[in-house]
């Protein structure tokens, strides 16, 4: 019952994401745009971009992950879908987990897939494209699940987007540190697996905690 209910929420969210005109592509556009503006402000020297590229890519990925968060729970809260979920017998923890997972699949994974392209534009070595996609997909999971806590806390706040940033960014720190360390390792041919494992630890921690914190906040918003 619980798991099938969560599965239904997951499928519904995916369908909505892929049918609802442009919702998925906006963070992708932001991600690409932020990375493309960097050479305009830093200057196009290849050495400088090679040195700053991994860090720029990673902060752009983190900010792009925040973009879809404002509507993650707010839309469902406003039109009453969350009330229906709450009355359906499926625990809100499952609902929060399923919604966040669906958003990560529909937005986070595409972000990770275009990351190698932006990586090359920022003069990263082509040979580490695979590592970049892997690190980005795991890191974006950490960003999405930590961001979901902020999204749930601010679901009842009109124009809570900036508030999400303030609430979620402190939680982003571990993934921020270890994810960019993995990218720098991949760029220099150095050790990238141990920071990747720490990034994965941050992602797993986020996945384990986020549904409970988010559900607790959503219950307050529904009351």
């Amino acid at each position: 019952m619980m798991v099938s209910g969560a599965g239904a929420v997951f499928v519904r969210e995916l369908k909505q994401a892929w049918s609802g005109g442009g919702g998925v592509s906006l963070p992708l556009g932001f991600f690409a745009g932020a990375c493309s503006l960097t050479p305009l402000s830093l200057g196009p020297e290849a050495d400088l971009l090679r040195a700053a590229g991994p860090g720029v890519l990673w902060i752009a990925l983190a900010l792009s992950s925040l973009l879809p968060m404002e509507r993650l729970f707010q839309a469902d809260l406003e039109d009453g879908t969350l009330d229906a979920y709450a009355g359906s017998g499926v625990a809100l923890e499952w609902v929060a987990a399923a919604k966040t997972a669906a958003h990560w699949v529909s937005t986070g994974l595409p972000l990770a897939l275009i990351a190698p392209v932006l990586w090359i534009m920022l003069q990263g070595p082509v040979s580490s494209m695979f590592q970049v996609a892997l690190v980005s997909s795991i890191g974006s999971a950490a960003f999405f699940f930590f961001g979901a806590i902020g999204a749930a806390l601010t679901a009842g706040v009109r124009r809570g987007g900036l508030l999400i940033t303030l609430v979620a960014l402190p939680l982003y720190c571990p993934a921020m540190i270890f994810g960019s360390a993995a990218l720098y390792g991949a760029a220099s041919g150095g050790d990238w697996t141990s920071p990747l494992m720490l990034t994965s630890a941050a992602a797993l921690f986020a996945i384990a905690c986020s549904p409970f914190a988010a559900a607790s906040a959503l219950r307050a918003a529904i009351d």
Partner: protein
Amino acid sequence: MAIMTVFANPHRFMSVSQPFAWIFSLAGVALIFAGVYMGLFLAPADARQGDAARIMFVHVPSAWLSMFAFAFMAGASLVSLVWRHALADVAAKSAAPFGAAFTALCLTTGSIWGYPIWGTWWEWDGRMTSVLILFFIYLGYIALWQAMDTPQKASRAAAVLCLVGAVNLPIIKFSVEWWNTLHQTATFFTGDNNATYGFKAPMYVVALGYLALFGGLTLFNMRAEILLTRAEMRLQRRLALG
């Protein structure tokens, strides 16, 4: 539990808290002045840093208080989430601005201390960065309270945020051991160190003063919060009666 139920009643809290608020606040100010005097005039100058090290009598206790205040808020948030204790919400909310103030004081004095000794106003070392993040969590907590329409919704959301943010406290505590960069490791409560009695006494006095001032101001803030709620309820009742 017994203590909790005694003070669970806001009326009892209002009837007994005012003298405590005054006593704690005044004692806090007196202790801070005494401790700062001891630190500036009675304590010996540091063997290596000279008089510049005297700022530690302001800096170190404010760091303790910045973490203590958040731990206090996290405890109150837990009580509020588990037992739906109205006074716990008020306590956590009232403590936040003072916790943020101690964090800001800690960061500022640390920066002022860092310039002559380390040669830099700011360095992205583990301890400083994690305390800066604590400051942002305080700001997010305060902003969340202000953004919500009703106190009921705000209290739940703020309590969840506070408990999640408490993850940062052990990170601050152990940051100097995990990332051994610039900030010195803990020397104060370890047995073998050169922090002699002359250094320790002013530090304890200032810390005690901060703690008392924090308690007193938080009590004043809680009283103001409760009075505000009462005034609003009275206003609504009057409006309802026409």
